[in-house]
């Protein structure tokens, strides 16, 4: 069984057995493949997941998408495929496998963008190894660019924080933390309100990190957002994914926050790196695909999603004032222009 037909088998199994995770399906196919390719494939599958988890553990400050891309680059280097098409297919399946571990939007968008970036060059070389070398170089370049993206965003955003400002933020976002770090480094005085952000109380983690920076911080209940907004000057949140309409997908509670800040006429800023741009266009909350709404383990174990509570929500672009990305400061309508340039 060659790689392409094994992928077809994989997809078939995926459709029929929804309660199995992608990892399980992979293992089942692997048993049907002949010994030679079996060895190579299986080693990479489990190693892939292991490598990914390893990357996340090594640097907890790194975005999960960056870890995923590092893993994919490693996968590319070790891949023993014979054709470019096969390579592309195996990369796509590797991305799918990684979303099985961490189902956030950023992992899938980062993987897709990585694939686009490395193949967006002339691969007309006769020799496959030379093509692979070109792709690897592009991959390294991509990784380098996105490692700098957080710094670029922080540089753009910190000027919007004036001296004496009161900032409201939601849950734990490393990008927002970086921005506030930079602003504190510029000797600006500001205080921060953080929502507790249940069910995982990630807001407390954010508060801890901010206390280390000597920034006065208050943790508020998710329900107290409307109460606290009159004291606040601006709202800054991170994003797990930026969709084509210019809206964002973020931890549950962001939509509420955006609605309240619109009602109070407070600016609502979003900070996100460009690899979080994803080719989705939700019309409302229901339209967001299920695979992003729940954690990866829930997707694998639970049958009936109506019992489960989603962990993310969608904020439409009409509620967002500005987006700070490493491509620049964008209005929500400009996001689609950037996406057209990226993907067209």
């Amino acid at each position, binding site marked *: 069984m060659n790689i392409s037909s094994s992928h077809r088998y994989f997809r078939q199994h995926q459709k029929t057995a929804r309660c199995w995770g992608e990892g399980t399906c992979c293992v089942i196919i692997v048993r049907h493949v002949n010994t030679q390719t079996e060895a190579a494939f299986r080693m990479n599958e489990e190693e892939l997941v292991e490598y990914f988890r390893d990357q996340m553990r090594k640097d907890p400050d790194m975005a999960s998408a960056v870890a995923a891309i590092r893993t994919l680059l490693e996968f590319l280097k070790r891949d023993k495929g014979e054709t470019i098409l096969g390579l592309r297919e195996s990369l796509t399946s590797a991305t799918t496998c990684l979303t099985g571990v961490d189902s956030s939007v950023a992992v899938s968008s980062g993987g897709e963008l990585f694939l686009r970036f490395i193949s967006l060059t002339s691969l007309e070389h006769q020799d496959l190894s030379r093509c692979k070398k070109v792709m690897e170089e592009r991959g390294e370049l991509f990784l380098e660019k996105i490692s700098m993206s957080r710094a670029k965003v922080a540089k753009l955003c910190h000027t919007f924080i004036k001296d004496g400002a009161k900032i409201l933020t939601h849950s734990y976002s490393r990008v927002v933390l970086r921005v506030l770090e930079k602003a504190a480094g510029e000797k600006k005085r500001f205080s921060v309100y953080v929502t507790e952000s249940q069910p995982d109380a990630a807001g407390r983690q954010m508060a801890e990190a901010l206390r280390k920076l000597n920034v006065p911080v208050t943790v508020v209940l998710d329900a107290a957002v409307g109460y606290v907004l009159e004291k606040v000057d601006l709202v800054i949140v991170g994003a797990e994914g930026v969709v084509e*309409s210019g809206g964002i997908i973020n931890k549950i509670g962001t939509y509420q926050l955006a609605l309240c800040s619109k009602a109070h006429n407070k600016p609502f800023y979003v900070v996100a790196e460009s690899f979080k741009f994803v080719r989705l*266009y939700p*019309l409302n909350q229901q339209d967001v695909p299920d695979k992003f709404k729940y954690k990866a383990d829930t997707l694998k174990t639970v049958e009936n999603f109506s019992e489960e509570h989603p962990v993310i929500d969608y904020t439409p672009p009409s509620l967002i004032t500005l987006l700070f990305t490493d491509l620049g400061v964008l209005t929500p*309508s400009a996001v*689609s*222009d950037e996406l*057209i340039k990226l993907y067209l």
Partner: protein
Amino acid sequence: MADSGVTEGPDKKEEIDRAKSEGKELTKEEKQRLRKEKKQQKKNKEKKDDKASQESEKEKKPLSSPPPASQPPPQSTTQKAPSAVPAPAPVSVPASEAPVPADKPAKSKAELKAERRARQEAERASKQGKKGETGQQAATSKQKAPPNELQPVVKRLPEHIQVDNPDVLKKLAKKLERQQTPGQVADKQIPLRMDYGYKVSLFSHLHQYSRKAPLTQQVSIPSTVIHPAVVRLGLQYSQGIVTGSNARSVALLHAFKQVIRDYTTPPNEELSRDLVNKLKPYISFLNQCRPLSASMGNAIKYIKKEISNIPSQCKEEEAKSKLLNCIECYINEKIILAAKAIAKSAIEKISDGDVILIYGCSSLVNHILCEAFEKSRKFRVIVVDSRPRLEGREALRRLVQKGISCTYVLISAVSYVLPEVSKVFLGAHALLANGYVMSRVGTSQIALVAKAFNVPVLVCCETYKFCERVQTDSFVSNELDDPDDLIVTRKGKTHLKDWQEVPSLGLLNLVYDVTPPDFVDLVITDLGLGMIPCTSVPVVLRVKNVDQ
């Protein structure tokens, strides 16, 4: 207008002025008299400086071509679409001025320019005084822009929306005369259709034609001038037999295919140039029958470009078959395949249990719904309809035939029905460069009410309908249909039968309206773009122009 040179009786002039200020249509004699006056004036002026007036006419011709016809120059791709529209004007003007001074060593170029500009200023000043009362803010602001700004010449309004200006009408009549192929008898000309009935003053700059008698009975159309396939097409347009943006474009392209098949290059002429000149009177004729739609405008631009790109050494048979092939490709790619691509993207947005609201009859939206039904999505449709066209009945017929469960309401019931609707699908006549959607009248109303109920509005539109025009209201450029369509007879009583005799009553039958992009959530289009927000239309236009 320097009316001082007129030697007519003062009371007759008073009558004309009174008639003009009341906004009523001038009677035939009055119009003829006006024309005679202007002819006299022109003859006097022409005697003064002959060549200068020729120059000014040549200059006015490229400028008075409607904005969609002008292509942005290839190097200014970085310019935004709205500013790209005035940019071609200075580009085309130096091109037309360049050959003319070569044969005029007597007067220097600068002197001529100064003379022309002075005359233009005088004309503009008097025109401004006249147009004070009418609410044509767009027209006056355009004419007020002085020529001694960055651009050498001011972009003029296209002729088809200056119906209330008799000079423009006269110029148009002359232009139609001039569009004869050489060797034609002067009295056989393309007919100039007369306006019908009282026009509401806000829309007096648009044509309003009557559909009571077919076009061939109102004017004589010489068949030697206009190809019979085009005459048939014009009749079909004017009588409302062929309606809908896609249908009209496809019919137009088929008629032009017939024209090309029957065409033979006259001796000493090149096919690439002669055929384009042949098409001009046909297009003016079709414009008289029914104003061209944006999609038709883009199709014509494409054909003209293809024809002029034919190499001169190409044999006639080969050239003709190439052109026919091009047109077939255009229809196939831009209309048929685009519909398939759009249907594929749109079906992702239709989920089981949806209640979809549609308005009027859009071929694309009907196609999408039929495809979705074939892919066994479970949904039901609410068809909204409005007078006087009642196009929703055609859509209802098509959907029910497929087996889709439908509800039919009139537009007055839209707010009653909207709470149970999950999505609204709308078709578009054109997508403008500032993100506004131009569609059948009533569309913006539905979008507004849907927004108030928080129901997502999706517009489906092929890319060949994207046009470079910018419009923020429905007054500047629209179409007025036959006002008699609004009259309804119930139980043998027609209350509005004598509406023409009531001086304060006007009947307005608008065809299009313009929806702002805030009310539209999503635009589904082809060319691999899939779903884009309404504000990204200028980006697509820019990218398309770069490709072409």
